[in-house]
Structures are given as C-alpha cells and as structure tokens.
C-alpha cells in the first residue's frame, strides 16, 4: 500500500545545511565586489539641514536619494517609506545614504567622518501619546447585527484592556542582499520571502523595464515575516548602489544594525467591552484595537485587518462593534511577523474570557466552550464557518493529555495551568488571493518534473513539502521532482511566501497540475501544465464594508501550559506545553511538528522573556545580549497532536499551519500564570518584576 502523505520524508535541504555547505548570501563572492554600509538617522524626528562629507577616496562612493533613477519610495501596501531620506527623518535608524567601496575598514572610517546636521522636532513614541494626538494612519471599523441595542439590553457590562509588546524576529541569519548587472540586466540576490515584492519595488525605484530586472532568492536563514517587506528596501539600496558604481554591491547587516532598523511585531492595546445577558452569556462585544505602526504605514493596514478579523477568535458573538487603528509614532516601522496582528487580539480575547469567567465564578474553559463557533455559524464579518469545527475533540484531547482538570484542582500556589483556544484564517485576508492570482508551472522533462513557483524555502520546509505533494500525486520518487531556482526570470509569480499560504494555496495548485499531468503523462516526453489560482465560488468578500468570508477556511487549536513561579525571585518556568491542532491533514508530520514546536517557543518568548522597550525613540534592547530569546534551557517538553479534518480545497486535505503554531502559547502561558498567582494578567511580556508587583498588590 502507498504510504500516507503524512509519513515523514528526509528534508531535501538538511544534508547540505548540516555539512555547512548551504550558501547564504554572506557566503557569496562576486568579482570586483563592493561592500555597502548604511548611514542612518540618529534623531527620532528632524529636518536634515546639512550633510558634510569628508574627502571620498578613489573607488569609494556615497549613494543617496539623488542617485535613485525612479521613485524614491519603497513599493508596498502603502508606499510611504523613502528609499533614502529626503528633507526629513522620522525615526532613529532611518536610512539616509550608503557608503560603498572595496574595503570595509575604509568604509567604516568614511562613515565615521560624515557629519549630518539636524534640526530636531518634537517626536512621539507611545500608543497612548499617539491616541491623544490622533496620529492615525488607518482607521477601520466593522459591525455585526445591532451592538447598540444589545448593549442597552445587556444585564451586565464588563470592560477591560490588554497590551502586548514588541517582538524582534531574530532570524539567525541577519538581513543580507546583493546586486549586480549582467550585461544590462539588473540582478538582485538575497535572503527574502517574496522575490516578486522585491522585483515590483525595483521596477518603480530603478525605472527599468520588467525584462531588465531579475530577483533571485538565496538560502534564507529564517524569516518569520521579517523578510517579507523589508528586503524591498535594502534591495533597492544595493540596486541603486550598483546602478551608480556599475560593480556588484553586497550589503550584509550585523545584528545590531538589523535590530535597529528592521521591522518588528506591532506593540498593541486591545480594549474590550462585553455585554452579558441574564445567563452570563456574552451577547455583545465592543472591541478597540490599537497598533503602533511606527514612522511609516507600509504593510501595517493589512496587519490591522487580520488583527480585527481575528479579534473574536473561536467564539460566536452575536453583536459586534470592532474598531482598529494604526498609529504613527517616531519609531522604527512595525511590520509582518508570524501571525500578522492576530496574536495580539487573540491574546486579548483569551484573557478577557478567562477574566470574565473568574469574575462570574465559572470555570474558564467551560465558559469559553459555551461561546464556541460551530459549522455554518456566521463569522465576525458576517461570512460563514464553512468547515466542520472539531474544537470539542481538540479540547478533549488537550485536557486529557495534560490532565488539565486534575492539575487545576491540585496545583499549589505558584504552580499554574492554563488553556487557550484559537484559530488562524488560512491564506491571504479578504480578496488578497484573488488580487495576486498565484500562477504555477509544472514541467515534465522526460523522467523528471520541474516545479516552478515563487514560494521560498526559509526553514519551514517548502523545498520538501511542495515536491512531496507533486511526487506523491505522480507516484514518482521525490528525487525526481526538481525545485526550480527561485529567480523571477525563471518562474511565474505564485505569490509571496507569507500568510501560511504556501502548502494550502501553492501546494493546492501543484496538486491540481500534478493530477492533470498524471492523466496526460504518456502524451509527450516534455510538456508543461500551468494553473492560476481561482477562489472557490462560494466565498464572498466586500473590501469596502469588510463583509463576508475574510478567510476561505481556518485552522484550529488548543494549547495547555503548565508553569511554576519561584516565590522568592519570581522567575517563571514553563514546565510543559500540550498542543493539539487541526491543520486539515499533515503533509509531513515531522516537518509539521518542527513548525508547531518552533512557533510555540517563539510565542513563549514573546509572552515572557522577550522584552523590547524604547526610551526617547531609541530601542533599549539593541543586540542579543539585551534582547533575550529562549535557549535550550528555557524550553519545556512540548507534546504535539493533531486532529484530522481534511479540507476539500487543500492538497490532500491540508490547511494552514505555520502561523497557527504561534498564536496559542502566549495566552495559555498567561492563563497558567493567573492560575498560579490567582491574579489577572493583562500585559505581556510577563516579567519577574511584574509578577512580584502583582503578587504583592493586595
């Protein structure tokens, strides 16, 4: 019998990585290559009044906005970030110019001699100040049913507010990018998630025709959203530099520079007002989401959309009024990070449910289960839950495997257990997929099959999982499926590697192509099958009113966290995580467990030790000595289990997984801490200082 698709295979890329033979962009060498270093703003908000350059030696160059052949703005959702600063700067770390040349020591010397004069202006930094001064970039609102009337009828109203902090991606490979001309075609190579985003940005900034630009993804050492929109900026930097110098230019950030200037997870505040009926059921919610977008809006509007469309999580609330605002502050721009706004609001609503249940004296899990969505229920945006909801089975497994109720009863003070329920909307939000219209090509070439997609391997396993879908469909060994180099000159645009869409959307298209190829296999020695994504007909979405199916389908899960708090030092130890997920059908169980465990640990980091704050616009944590991510000593044992729930439109029934993994552990850990101390937790990261204060506050 043929093996199940879920049976694990060896990762295609692991051997060369274990042997140290994978070539990341920092390992690339070009003939006559130059290095580039960025000179950045040291002021949070200022006019640039003068730039005084030292004598620039031969073979060294200064590259700035005057060298940009096209538009001096990075193309993204809102194209507001200047490639190089113009008259003003809006955050510390904003790029002003590059120094380019053959010897890095000399470049650093030139950089140290450049004097930039500023006229400083009043800046603002926090969400609270931004709200007071109404520096709103984006203001969204949607309603469901009649919240006004429902609040009038409510017998009890409970209000609360929850906040979350910054998170730095800390992909182990810092940002790196290179550019060169080959004849008159511009090539940009680098560590990235979205080669066509970079290409589209270059089209505008370099004012070159489409056929004169090629973007090539190099082995990417982790990304998590941090290499989604950002490489469009540094990609334009090296492209302008190579345009000026006509030599290859390489720019590799060191960790300090990477942390200083790259995007981060949006700090957030989420406010809830809940209206309860006489049976304690929540009948109405007023939700107000505030995100700190930083100095430029960029990708933040779509992050905000996912934040507000995820704000009711797995619950069916009849009457809703949901508002979301992105605020401008003079801080480094926030951007894409695994979960894309959803972890912030889901943390909020999970804690709200927990806290209301405790006020009412009801078991939190039971209270949550009373409000659970089921199949054919309306979503928060008035669409429909089309898939079967297996949350009861998921929760039952999580509860049994963790011995949840027994521990809840027997835990002593400073020992805690908590559970979170959560979902993730699979693929792009709203009409995203219909705008991108992802295209893929599958090519038969005698006994091998070449797969042409723009999805990149960045650690998540695309280079194994996508060929596996094709191989399994065609009944050929995986070695016979070749993943074409992700080079925009060789592949179609199947969309960016984001939004947990790769396996479900791109893998789904590959499965369709492979099925057709299988039927036509004997037709010819070489032929090509191509497909363009088509949204299932039953899905409807109105982008103006935010009404309809924001997502085609959801993945679901429950996490149980067990914690211990040291009663003297208040150090928090995560003892164990029990996680159960419905991701449809696992395409490769081992690769999937790797994703889930990694996401859970990133979530634990965000909820506990990953503290990042600012003072007067400056990041206080500016390197890996100050900004701590979990080490092997900080991680608990993690049990992962799956509930099968095949999705009709996913390959072999697969749905989304990569981001879902992140969403559940922060509220589970916070709920466990509440349980350990018997006091509410409203903010993450949870630090020992905070726990000491909460515990001693009578």
């Amino acid at each position, binding site marked *: 019998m043929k093996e199940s698709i879920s049976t*694990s295979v*060896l*990762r295609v*890329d*692991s*051997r*060369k*990585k*274990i*042997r*140290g*033979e*994978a*070539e*990341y962009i*920092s*390992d690339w060498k070009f003939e006559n290559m130059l290095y580039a270093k960025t000179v950045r703003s040291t002021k949070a908000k200022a006019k640039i009044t003068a730039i005084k350059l030292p004598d620039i030696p031969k073979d060294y160059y200064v590259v700035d906005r005057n060298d940009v052949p096209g538009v001096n703005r990075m193309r993204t959702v809102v194209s507001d970030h200047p490639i190089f600063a113009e008259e003003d700067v809006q955050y510390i770390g904003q790029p002003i110019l590059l120094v380019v040349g053959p010897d890095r020591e000399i470049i650093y010397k030139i950089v140290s001699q450049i004097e930039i004069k500023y006229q400083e202006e009043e800046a603002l930094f926090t969400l609270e100040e931004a709200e007071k001064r109404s520096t709103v970039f984006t203001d969204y609102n949607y309603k469901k049913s009649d919240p006004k009337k429902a609040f009038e009828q409510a017998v009890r109203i409970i209000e609360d507010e929850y906040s979350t902090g910054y998170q730095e*991606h*800390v*992909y*182990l*490979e*810092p940002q790196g990018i290179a550019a060169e001309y080959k004849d008159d075609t511009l090539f940009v190579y680098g560590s990235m998630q979205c080669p066509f985003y970079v290409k589209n940005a270059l089209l505008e900034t370099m004012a070159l025709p489409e056929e004169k630009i090629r973007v090539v993804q190099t*082995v*990417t*050492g*982790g*990304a*998590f959203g941090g290499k989604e929109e950002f490489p469009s900026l540094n990609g334009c930097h090296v492209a302008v530099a190579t345009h000026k110098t006509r030599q290859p230019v390489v720019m590799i950030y*060191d*960790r*300090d520079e990477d942390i200083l200037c790259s995007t981060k997870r949006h700090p957030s505040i989420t406010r809830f007002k809940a209206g309860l009926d006489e049976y304690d059921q929540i009948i109405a919610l007023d939700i107000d989401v505030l995100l700190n977008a930083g100095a430029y809006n960029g990708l933040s509007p779509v992050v905000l959309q996912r934040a507000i469309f995820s704000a009711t999580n797995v619950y069916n609330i009849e009457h809703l009024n949901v508002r979301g605002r992105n605020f401008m502050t003079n801080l480094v721009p926030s951007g894409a990070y695994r979960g894309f706004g959803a972890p912030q609001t889901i943390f909020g609503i999970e804690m709200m449910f927990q806290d209301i249940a405790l006020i009412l004296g009801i078991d939190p899990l039971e209270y949550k289960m009373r409000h659970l969505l089921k199949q054919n229920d309306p979503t928060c945006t008035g669409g429909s839950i089309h898939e079967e909801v297996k949350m009861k089975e998921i929760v039952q497994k999580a509860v049994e495997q963790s011995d949840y109720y027994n521990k809840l009863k027997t835990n002593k003070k400073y020992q805690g257990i908590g559970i979170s329920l959560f979902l993730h909307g699979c693929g792009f939000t709203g009409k995203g997929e219909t705008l991108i219209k992802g295209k893929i090509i599958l090519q038969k070439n005698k006994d091998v099959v070449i797969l042409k997609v723009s999805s990149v391997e*960045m*650690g*998540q*396993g695309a280079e194994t999982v996508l060929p596996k879908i094709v191989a399994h469909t065609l009944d050929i060994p995986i070695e016979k499926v070749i993943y074409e180099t992700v080079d925009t000159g060789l592949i179609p645009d199947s969309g960016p590697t984001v939004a947990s869409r790769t396996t479900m959307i791109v893998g789904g298209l590959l499965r369709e192509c492979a099925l057709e190829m299988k039927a036509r296999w004997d037709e010819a020695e070489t032929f090509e099958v191509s497909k363009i994504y088509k949204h299932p007909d039953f899905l409807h979405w109105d982008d103006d009113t935010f009404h309809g199916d924001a997502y085609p389908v959801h993945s679901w899960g429950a996490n149980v966290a067990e914690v211990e708090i040291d009663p003297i030092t208040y150090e928090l130890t995560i003892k164990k995580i029990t996680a159960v997920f419905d991701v449809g059908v696992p395409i490769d169980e*081992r*690769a999937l*467990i*790797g994703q889930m*465990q*990694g*996401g*859970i*640990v*990133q979530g634990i980091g965000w909820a506990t030790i990953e503290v990042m704050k600012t003072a007067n616009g400056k990041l206080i944590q500016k*390197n*890996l*000595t100050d900004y701590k*991510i*979990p*080490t*092997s*000593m900080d*991680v608990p*044992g*993690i049990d992962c289990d799956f509930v099968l729930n095949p999705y009709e439109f996913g390959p072999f029934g697969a749905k989304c997984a990569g981001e879902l993994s992140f969403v559940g552990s922060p509220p589970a850990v916070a709920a466990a801490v509440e349980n350990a101390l018997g006091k509410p937790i409203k903010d993450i990261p949870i630090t020992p200082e905070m726990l000491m204060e909460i515990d001693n506050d009578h």
Partner: protein
Amino acid sequence: MIIEFTLNNEKVKMDVEPTMRVLDLLRNDLGMSSVKEGCGEGECGACVILVDGRAMNSCMLPAGAIVNRSIVTLEGFKHTEQFKVIEAGLLKAGSVQCGFCTPGFVMAIESLLNQNPDPTDEEIKEGLSGNLCRCTGYNMIIKGVRLAIEKGAGLW
C-alpha cells in the same frame, strides 16, 4: 604579527593583526564559510569552532589567541566518524530548519560529547545553551543528539 596554528589538521602560518576576530580570519581569509556570523558578540553560537577540542565562539576570539592551537571547523570535522553519527541523528530527528545555526550546533554537540559521552537530557540542554535556534524550539535538536549518542556509543 605572524601566527601559526593548525586548521583542520593542516599547519597554517599567516601575517595578521593580533586583534582581528578569528571569525573574520576563517571566513574571509581562509574560506571557511561554514562558520556563520549571527550576532558578533558571543550570544548566538553560529560561529562556534573547536579550539583544542572545545567549543568557542570565534567572533569573541582574537587571532592572537589561537597561536599554536588546533582549530577545527565543520569543513574538517565533516570527514570524521563522529560527524557521520551526529549527521544521521540530526537528519532522523528533523533537527534542521533554516540551517543557519546548524554548523554551530554540530560543533557544539561534538564538544559536548567530547567532554561528556553520556549526557542526560538536562546536560544536553545545558551543553547547547550557548547556541540559539529560532526555528525548532530545540526539542528536535535534543532528540537528534540523543539519537547520535545511541548510534555512536563508544565513539566519544
């Protein structure tokens, strides 16, 4: 200054600034690209090499400190029996995702097993706590080490 040391069992003699980072010496002058720079301040372990058999962060090591010492990078270590066993363990456990931290982990595992051929899980965690991984959550790396120890009994 002129320094001499062995790199992957071969003698090297070169003229360097004594304060130059061994990381740069290895990557830029000697082509040892398995040695990765992840943080440049001794926190992440991506640049771990063996100095006289023990794991050290090459970004924190000045060239002057390796005079007459034996340096091993993955370029040399990958030809050993110990490597093959570690590789098999990591492959089977699914320990690798983005791979940028992997060379440093391989060297740290070798150093750990050199000093303690039969570590407990807690000792493995402690032994690898100088190496950061952002992808896996470590459980599958620890499992990979466990598999290597089972397969390679007697090698260390």
